[in-house]
């Protein structure tokens, strides 16, 4: 081996602690980058292939009832490639041994052929036989949640009639990648299921023979969507059309898109952050490590080593550290990414997962890290090369220290000699000190970003479910129902209070903005469903005009006082101008609210309601559930406690998994940065400190001089880190806003405390490690050789 390479390996071994710390930081940066990149790739790829291979429809429309003959006219519309008419029914389900109400959605499939659109991926068993009326295929998620196997019996209430069904298979559909009960925010596979039945059998059961109440359309060209939607609305309005829409407003697709957007945000922000910090550290560390080799570089040059050979020498050092770090990072990231992607498939039910590491991802990570390290190396080498060998080899002139600001202010009495040395050293190299502070502050900020979401989620639950949605139980009706229904709800066992609402699908327009959403009419003075203003105070419902979720108002660009166009998408489809009276603070979902009677008037209907919120006596719950299951008009029942649990579970399984990783990585990075700062300081100053020892300073005193500086920089860095952390959290919170949820920027004091603790603990540990080295400082060796 060449002597120069020996030098490389020896020096690498000498700084192994530091090298490992740097590698760990790279590993974290790369792992996060690869984890998110690979997950995002996998989910995107998988969805695209699934949609294509299983013919996901482009346009969707629900209606009351239309004769099958209408199919021809839909198929003849320009731009339409495929049409599938269906019967879709909201049902109640009974699964043996499960006491709580289960809502289902029964969807028809053609009897003797493959569906042309929204094909099923059969996971288990078979499709229902065409000549049987009692066979059903259920969604895999539902079957798994109840451990149902082919052959299992289900009891279903269709249109008020009980029917026994036999499960013959389990399946997945591109239409229900994300299965959400309408009106719910989070999946609950036990209490909501999708079922498929033959068209003929379901037609008989639901009273839809020769008719359909749902149509899906495949387009020749996606650009035809707006025209086809208009034409379809025109065709379906006489048949009770509820408004055609494209994929953007299809529940599963929309949810996926929002989630993908969120993952993309995390997949951009966090890798940029972590990788950025890693690269920053590499840059600084390489710069300083090579800066310390100035004299050796001079010597090598004096003996006729060219700049190229010397640059290559240090490059090799960098390469070893970076490549090992990147390799481990890619490996860890690929593993974590698979885990994360699999986590997502608990919510996104795909038949397969196209998970693979792309070359770009790995190569990108390597290039970024190498670039960062090489930039630092090049910077330091350029400085060393700029010196003539004679200068480079000369021991650095004793630094020109100055009296510090404090001393110039005449306050030196306040400072002991060691304190003065610390301050002078910091002042002499302001850039270096600044970079150290910046590095530690970044570590502190990153730690906060990984941690803050937990407290935030608690706050969201508090506000949404404790201040705003306070019912025990929510029931929705299959279709708008008369007020009399309240009477029947009131008299059910255990019901203490009933508050009704009317919800209508609408399109809101303001100037060039428009959104499809729900307009909810609620009676004034409600106690179970309350609206809050920006300061979380109760908001009175005005008798005129609408209130909008704050985020919806933002999306539409409206403010209180503006007039909004409301296009109702059901019934006689009236279009009205309505003033916006104010905005409602909501973290989950978006909606528009108005007075119930006002909405009934706007819809030109009598007093009708879509559902009700109930306060119930816990002791009578099971009896209540049983009775609710018998009411045919009730399409679904949601238990608030369960919703909260679903919310927590969803958040915990995705966000908190990631939060955990981010926290662990942030801690590693914090330690990596601080330990490196301490080690570099030790190496740079060991001669000086050894001389002080020789002059009679004690170990404690020289430790104080070195570690006091680290401590001071750390203390300065922590508040700065809080600011950095808050900035990162703000970026995240702003980027993560979606119609599904908005995370409030709430940084709990415990988050600050945690970040500060991590930084301080890292500093203490680094200090202790360095102190051990200081105690073993070989005075003779340090003074005898010069490097």
């Amino acid at each position, binding site marked *: 081996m060449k002597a120069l390479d020996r030098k490389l390996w020896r020096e690498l071994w000498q700084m192994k602690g530091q090298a490992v710390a740097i590698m760990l930081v790279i590993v974290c940066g790369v792992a996060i980058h690869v984890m998110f990149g690979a997950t995002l790739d996998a989910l995107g790829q998988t969805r695209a292939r699934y949609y294509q291979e299983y013919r996901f429809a482009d346009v969707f429309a629900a209606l009351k009832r239309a004769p099958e003959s209408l199919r021809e006219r839909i198929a003849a519309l320009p731009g339409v490639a495929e049409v599938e008419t269906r019967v879709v029914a909201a049902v109640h389900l009974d699964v043996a041994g499960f006491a709580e109400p289960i809502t289902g959605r029964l969807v028809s499939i053609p009897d003797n052929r493959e569906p042309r659109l929204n094909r099923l991926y059969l996971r288990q068993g078979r499709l229902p036989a065409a000549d049987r009326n009692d066979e059903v295929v259920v969604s895999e998620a539902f079957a798994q949640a109840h451990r149902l196997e082919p052959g299992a019996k289900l009891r279903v209430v269709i249109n008020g009639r009980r029917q026994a069904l036999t499960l013959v298979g389990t399946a997945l559909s591109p239409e229900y990648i994300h299965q959400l009960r309408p009106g719910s925010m989070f999946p609950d596979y036990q209490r909501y299921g999708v079922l498929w039945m033959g068209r003929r059998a379901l037609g008989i059961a639901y009273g839809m023979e020769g008719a359909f109440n749902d149509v899906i359309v495949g387009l020749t060209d996606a650009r035809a969507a707006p025209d086809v939607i208009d034409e379809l609305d025109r065709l379906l309005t006489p048949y009770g059309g509820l408004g055609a829409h494209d994929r953007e407003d299809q529940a599963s697709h929309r949810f996926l898109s929002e989630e993908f957007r969120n993952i993309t945000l995390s997949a951009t922000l966090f890798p940029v952050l972590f990788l950025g910090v890693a690269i920053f550290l590499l840059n600084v560390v390489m710069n300083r490590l090579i800066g310390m080799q100035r004299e050796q570089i001079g010597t090598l040059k*004096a003996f006729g080593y060219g700049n190229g050979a010397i640059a290559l020498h240090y490059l090799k050092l960098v390469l070893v550290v970076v490549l090992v770090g990147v390799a481990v990072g890619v490996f860890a990231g690929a593993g974590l990414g698979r885990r994360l992607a699999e986590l997502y498939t608990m919510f996104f039910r795909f038949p397969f997962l196209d998970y693979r590491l792309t070359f770009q991802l790995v190569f990108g990570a390597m290039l970024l890290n190498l670039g960062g390290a090489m930039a630092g190396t090049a910077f330091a080498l350029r400085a060393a090369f700029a010196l003539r060998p004679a200068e480079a*080899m000369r021991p650095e002139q004793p630094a020109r220290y100055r009296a510090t600001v404090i001393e110039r202010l005449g306050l030196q009495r306040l400072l002991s000699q060691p304190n003065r040395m610390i301050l002078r050293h910091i002042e002499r190299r302001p850039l270096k000190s600044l970079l150290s502070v910046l590095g530690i502050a970044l570590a502190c900020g990153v730690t906060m970003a990984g941690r803050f979401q937990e407290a935030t989620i608690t706050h969201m639950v508090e506000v949404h479910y404790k201040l705003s949605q306070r019912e025990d139980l929510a029931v929705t009706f299959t279709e708008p129902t008369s007020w009399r229904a309240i009477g029947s709800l009131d008299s059910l066992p255990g019901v203490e209070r009933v508050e009704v609402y009317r919800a209508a699908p609408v399109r809101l327009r303001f100037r060039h903005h428009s959104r499809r959403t729900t307009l909810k009419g609620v009676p004034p003075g409600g106690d179970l469903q309350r609206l809050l203003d920006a300061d979380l105070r109760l908001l009175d419902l005005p008798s005129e005009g609408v209130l909008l979720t704050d985020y919806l108002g933002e999306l539409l660009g409206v403010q209180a006082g503006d007039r909004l166009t409301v296009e109702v998408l059901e019934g006689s489809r009236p279009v009205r101008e309505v003033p916006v009276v104010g905005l409602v603070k909501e973290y989950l979902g978006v909606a528009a609210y108005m007075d119930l009677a006002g909405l009934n008037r706007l819809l030109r209907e009598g007093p009708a309601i879509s559902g009700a919120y109930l306060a119930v006596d816990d002791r009578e719950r099971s009896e209540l559930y049983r009775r609710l299951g018998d009411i045919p008009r009730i399409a679904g029942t949601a238990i608030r406690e369960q919703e909260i649990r679903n919310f927590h579970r969803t958040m915990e399984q995705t966000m908190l998994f990631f939060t955990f990783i981010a926290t662990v990585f942030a801690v590693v990075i914090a330690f990596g940065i601080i330990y490196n700062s301490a080690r570099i300081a030790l190496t740079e100053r060991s001669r000086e400190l050894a001389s002080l020892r020789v002059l009679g300073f004690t170990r404690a005193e020289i430790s104080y001089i070195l570690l006091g500086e680290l401590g001071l920089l750390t203390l300065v860095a922590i508040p700065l880190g809080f600011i950095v952390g808050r900035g990162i959290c703000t970026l995240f919170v702003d980027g993560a806003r979606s119609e599904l949820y908005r995370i409030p920027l709430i940084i709990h004091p415990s988050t600050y405390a945690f970040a500060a603790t991590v930084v301080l603990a890292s500093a203490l540990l680094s200090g202790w490690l360095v102190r051990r080295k200081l105690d073993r400082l070989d005075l003779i060796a340090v003074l005898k050789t010069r490097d």
Partner: protein
Amino acid sequence: MTDHRDRVFLARDLTKIYPMGEIEVQALRGVDLALFAGEFVVLLGPSGSGKSTLLNILGGLDSPSSGAMQYGGRDLGVYDDAELTRYRREHVGFVFQFYNLIPSLTARENVALVTEIARNPLPPEEALTLVGLADRLDHFPAQLSGGEQQRVAIARAVAKRPEVLLCDEPTGALDVQTGVRVLAVIDRVNRELGTTTVVITHNAAIAAMADRVIHLSNGLIARIDHNAQRQAPEAIVW
């Protein structure tokens, strides 16, 4: 003068000024000098008189503030960095005042560092044996005494069999016996290989070994002595 011999170095009106903030340090104030092939020259002078500065300029480690330094008829001042590197690699052997060993390399490896890029070097072990360090091959600089480090530095310089050997106080840290031994090595390299040798020393006794003794004082050549007879290193008394 001995102009009949080949002139290896020719310095014309060399000055070197170190800017030190507001003040300037004049290390050389106009040095004219010629060095000849195979010649053994000793540079004498008080501390701070510019000896190291002159040696560094001879070796292409530093450049003069004004004036010209020619080697083999070519001006070192016009060499770019790559040419200066080649010049040092192919022609010059250094012994530095502060040894400048690489701390992470053993004695043998420190020598190998130089012989690996030389055209016709001695094996590192042989060079180290020459300076009496055959039993210290695998010691790191921190495990060597100051004098031993100095001898490694000398082994490193002579191992490449350079055309020019520049030594900055090669015996500063050595006792008489070892000093004599080291000087004998330098003397032998000079005689056997015809290496042009420049040795800086504070020790006037060593001057007896030289063909010529150049006295520097305050950045100028004060006088040049010719020795009619070079004394053998063993005969030096200090």
